Every structure is written in structure tokens, then in C-alpha cells.
């Protein structure tokens, strides 16, 4: 009897072992598969960046002759010369210029869009539907055709050749995209916490600052991220509104040398492209941890 029991326990233990091992194996296979797919697709995603970086170290003649990543004879010429530019200014100036557009723009966007989205998502008021429709409508018209009237408007405001046209409209929640995005996120967050804060004596503004903003953080971070990236890349806006070379942002300075009707120095341009992408990459890399640590609105566990 006792013997029986022993063996059966042994069998059970054996079983357990096997199951544990099987589960471990499955786990391993799953992990390998996951990483495999991630790396493979990731390479496809990264190919252009890698090529770009590689090419920026190639001498001009090699850039198009050799589609590989690794330069045959690496040179940092592109960076050195590119940084100097053909203007009296170096890229330092252009980067500083870019930041003096990006920073007010991001701050303005974050503040105004959050407030407006909060207004749309949490309040009832007259004309709400009309205003929301107007918001969406501004997204839908191709801006090619509003460019000239807008230019005339800013001309009359005396804002030409300043950075104002580039960021002031954003500071007035001009980027409907972001407002709409935050509205959608906000509507997905339950109101309980806000109600508790109201009872705690917070007015709607305090609720916004202390409750809504923290809960909205992952979305807000993406808004800032997008605004950063898109402003860094924006070429047409500065092209039209900024005439003085000393006020050029990086995006414009980058294309300064590209005259397709003439020969130009590819490696300088590529080198500067790499540098212009760098801030965006770094910012994204740093910001995305907030997506992991993002505050779950799930609240309390049981």
C-alpha cells in the first residue's frame, strides 16, 4: 500500500517534471519566435536608417555605386563640411533656430490642446456639436489651397520672416489632429477619479491639472513627440514664411544645398540628414518608457 503510494507519487512528480520542462520549452520557443519576428521586421524598418548612416560616411562617388551599408572608404568629410554650410552660419545656428520654433510650439500645443480636449470631452455647452464639427472640418481641407490666403493673413499681421506663423496657431489649439486625439483618449477614461477630486474640493481646472493630465500622460507624451517630430521635419512652413537665412531651421537648411539642376555633395546632405533625425530618435527612445510605465486607469486591484 505504502509502496503503491510512493510509486504513484513518484509518477506524479515525474509528470510534473515533464510538464514543467514542456512548458519551459514552449516558453523558449515562443520567446525565440517573438524575437525572431521582431528582429526580422525590425531590420526592414531600419534598413533606410542604416543605409543613410552608412552612406553619410561614403565619399560622393561611392554613394550610388554601392547599395551596401558599409562604406568602402569611410570619411567624416560629409559631417565636417556639412556642419560648416555654404552660409555664414553653421548648423549650430540652424539647430538653435529649430528649437526656438519647436519649444514654444510644443508647450503651446500641449497646453491648449489639453484644455480644449478637456472642454470637449467633459462638458456640455451650447454649440458644442458645431464647434467639434468645425474642428474636424479643418482637418479635411488640403492645405495647399489655404496656403496663399494664410500667407496674406500673416503678412497683414506683420509676422513674415518671424517664427510666429510657425507656432502661434498651434498654441491656439490649431492642430485639430491633437485635439481630436486627446478627446478620444479622454473619453476612454472613466470619470470616477475626477468626481472624487471634485468632491475633494478641486475646481474643474484643478481636476484637469491634478487628475486628468496625469491620467492622460501617455497620450500627451505622444502628442509632444509627434509635434516635435513633425516640426523638426516641416519644410514647407519655414520655406514660405522665413526668408532670412540666419533664421532658417534645420529642415530648411538641409535642403539649402540641393539643387537638382546642378551637381551637389550628397554625403554632406546625408550627413546632415542623419544629424537632423538624431534628436527625434533620442527623444522617442527616452519618451517611450512612459508607454510602459503609463499609469493604468484600472485603479485598484482586488
Amino acid at each position, binding site marked *: 500500500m505504502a509502496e503503491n503510494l510512493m510509486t504513484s507519487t513518484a509518477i506524479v512528480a515525474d509528470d510534473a517534471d515533464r510538464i514543467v520542462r514542456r512548458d519551459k520549452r514552449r516558453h523558449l520557443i515562443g520567446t525565440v519566435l517573438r524575437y525572431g519576428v521582431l528582429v526580422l521586421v525590425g531590420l526592414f524598418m531600419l534598413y533606410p536608417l542604416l543605409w543613410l548612416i552608412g552612406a553619410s560616411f561614403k565619399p560622393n562617388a561611392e554613394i550610388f555605386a554601392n547599395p551596401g551599408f558599409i562604406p568602402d572608404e569611410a570619411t567624416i568629410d560629409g559631417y565636417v563640411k556639412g556642419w560648416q554650410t555654404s552660409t555664414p552660419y553653421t548648423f549650430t545656428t540652424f539647430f538653435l533656430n529649430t528649437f526656438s520654433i519647436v519649444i514654444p510650439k510644443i508647450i503651446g500645443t500641449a497646453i491648449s490642446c489639453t484644455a480644449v480636449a478637456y472642454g470637449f470631452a467633459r462638458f456640455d455647452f451650447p454649440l458644442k456639436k458645431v464647434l467639434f464639427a468645425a474642428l474636424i472640418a479643418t482637418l479635411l481641407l488640403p492645405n495647399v489651397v489655404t496656403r496663399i490666403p494664410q500667407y496674406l493673413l500673416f503678412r497683414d499681421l506683420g509676422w513674415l520672416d518671424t517664427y510666429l506663423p510657425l507656432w502661434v496657431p498651434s498654441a491656439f489649439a490649431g492642430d485639430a489632429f491633437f485635439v481630436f486625439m486627446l478627446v478620444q483618449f479622454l473619453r476612454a477614461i472613466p470619470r*470616477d*477619479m475626477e*468626481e*472624487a*477630486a*471634485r*468632491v*475633494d*474640493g*478641486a*475646481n*474643474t481646472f*484643478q481636476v484637469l491639472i*491634478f*487628475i486628468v493630465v*496625469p*491620467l492622460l500622460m501617455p497620450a500627451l507624451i505622444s502628442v509632444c513627440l509627434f509635434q516635435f517630430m513633425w516640426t523638426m521635419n516641416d519644410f514647407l512652413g519655414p520655406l514660405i514664411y522665413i526668408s532670412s537665412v540666419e533664421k532658417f531651421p534645420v529642415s530648411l537648411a538641409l535642403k539649402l544645398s540641393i539643387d537638382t539642376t546642378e551637381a551637389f555633395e550628397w554625403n554632406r546632405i546625408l550627413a546632415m540628414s542623419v544629424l537632423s533625425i538624431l534628436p527625434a530618435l533620442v527623444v522617442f527612445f527616452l519618451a517611450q518608457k512612459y508607454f510602459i510605465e503609463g*499609469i*493604468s*486607469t*484600472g*485603479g*485598484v*486591484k*482586488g
Partner: protein
Amino acid sequence: MARLQLRNLQKSYGDFKAVHGINLEVEDGEFMVLVGPSGCAKSTTLRMIAGLERVTGGEIRIGETLVNDKAPGERGIAMVFQNYALYPHMKVRKNLSFGLRLKRRPADEIEEATRDVSNILEIGDYLERLPKQLSGGQAQRVAVGRALIKKPQVFLFDEPLSNLDAKLRASMRVRITDLHKQLKADGMQSTVVYVTHDQTEAMTMGDRICVMKDGHIMQVADPVTLYNRPANAFVAGFIGSPEMNLVDANLKGNVLSIGAQSHALSDQVMARLDQGHSPELILGVRPQHFSIADADTENTFEGRISHVEFMGHEVYLYVHVEGQQMIVVVSATNYDRSKINGDHVRLQPQPAAMHLFDRKSGENISLGHLQ
């Protein structure tokens, strides 16, 4: 200064009428308990008082001020939510002190208040945790703490203790009433509206109890009155544990018949009866007000035991009488263990504790004119 008045208060969700014009006055410093079955609109009423739910009709006054259109923060209230609603991104300490910080109280006052409250609620160890790192009961206590810390004019509690264990619940119960009394003694006449579905809480904490059903108020009275003189069958059945036995009965003269069994009412009972009542009644007797009688006793009900629950010092007998179930509580020491499932017993009600209700309206017709 913190009398709370509800006048013809109404609330509809679309077509669904959740609150049907209720009237309630809570005196300054009074501890009012709202009880009622699930879904009877206790929370809805409380949320309207808090200003979280728009009023469909009627008035809410705190002090003498009409607050219908005031923001929650301006009503001088604090509230404990049924589902906690802790701020998920703040540590417990910040959750507690948020209200005070909004009022820009000095740091040391906040510090002290936080310490006091966390001592009272035994959450001092969790001050640096996030809500998601708390157990259900711990979270609930933090929610209570968040209200206590503010010492408001009117406290609103929505089942604040439902997730605490018995021991803690008992001590919290005493603490909340003590706190209330202390505030009262300090001249800060804090009014309390307390929603619960717990008998014990309702009976022990409330100065008065408001029993609700389907968005109507059934009775408002102090605990003793409510227990001894329920205004209708609903209240009678709702208050008391185990619940009062309510069985259909017919009255002819002084003979009360339940199914095939009949029972002569004593003169004492007959004297209490309203005039002109219908013969179709409901008899109500609390489980504690039966005694188990010998086979030859008169005026008893005979039934069969279907289920026995052992409750420590008491035993609950579930007895089938003429197809209707009654519960009888007997002391464990008196309990004759030979009485088990299937046995027949005779139940003798105490005449003084018999209630009779009109079967249609549910009105209690046996209150007499004593009051």
C-alpha cells in the same frame, strides 16, 4: 449650519425613473443612514447630494443654501465612494492629503492630519504605496481616510465598510460614530449621510434610518422605532436579521388562519388593529420572537424543519409551515440537538411581537394609536 434638506428630489435616466421625488430632512449633526435593497437608488441620491449627478427635479439645500447648481467642491461635503475612486497615480499619502493641499493648508498641518487619519485607519504602513499595490480593504480605508481628513460640513458615505473584515468593520463602525460625536462635541456639527446595506451598521450607527425602495422612501425613523414599529411589510422584512417572517394569513373575527392552521389572536393584539382593515393580511413575526412549544400547547403553528444553520451561539431553524418558510432563532444552549431536518416542531409567537400588514398596500395595521 449644516442641515440637509431634500425636497421632492427626482432623478431620471432617460425613461427610467430612479428617484421619485423624495423628501428628507437631516438635522444639523444628525447621522442619517440610507438603507434599502440593491438598486433602490441609494447611491444615486447620495451622488445628487454630492453634486456629481444632475438633479432632474426638486431641491437640495445644505444649511439654508440651495446647492442644486453648486460645484461639488463648494458644497462643503466629503464623500467615500463605493468603488473607492482612488487617484491611481498618487501615493496613498497624496491621495489622503489632496483635498487639503488644494486648500493650501500649511505643510505641517497636512502632515499632522495625514498622520492622524492614517493612525485611526491603520494605514500608516502604506502611505508610500500606490493604490494598485493595496488590498481591497486597504484601499477602502484610504478612501475613508480621504473623506475624514477634510472634516467637512456633511459627510457622505457610500458603503464605506463593505470591503473590510468583521473585526475592522466593527472597530471602524465605532470609530466613525465616535468621530462624529467628537466633532459634534467640538461644536463642528457634522451631518452624515451614510449608505449601507449592513443591518448592524444601520442599527448601531444611525441616529435615524431612512429605508428606501425603488426610489421611494418607505420609512424614516430611529432604529428602535424602525425595529419595533415598522410602517409596512417592506421595512419589517428589511430591518432585522435574520429577516422577519412574513406569511400570508386571513383574519376572520379574531381567528387568524394560515393555510389549514388557525390561531386565535389575543385581545391585546386585536386592540392594536386599525379599523376597517381588509381580511387579507400578512402576519409578521421576527425569528427571535418564536419559542418552540410542546406538542400540546395551543395557538401555535406547526411546521417541518428543512434546514439548520449553526451560528455560534445561535441556531437558525428553517421551518416549512403550510408551504411558507419561516426562520426561527433559538439559543445554541437551549437548542435540542435531536431536532434536525425533517422533524416537526410547534412554533409559538409572542403576542406582543406580532405584526399584521395589509396584503395589498403593505401598511402595518397593528400599530395601534400608541404613537
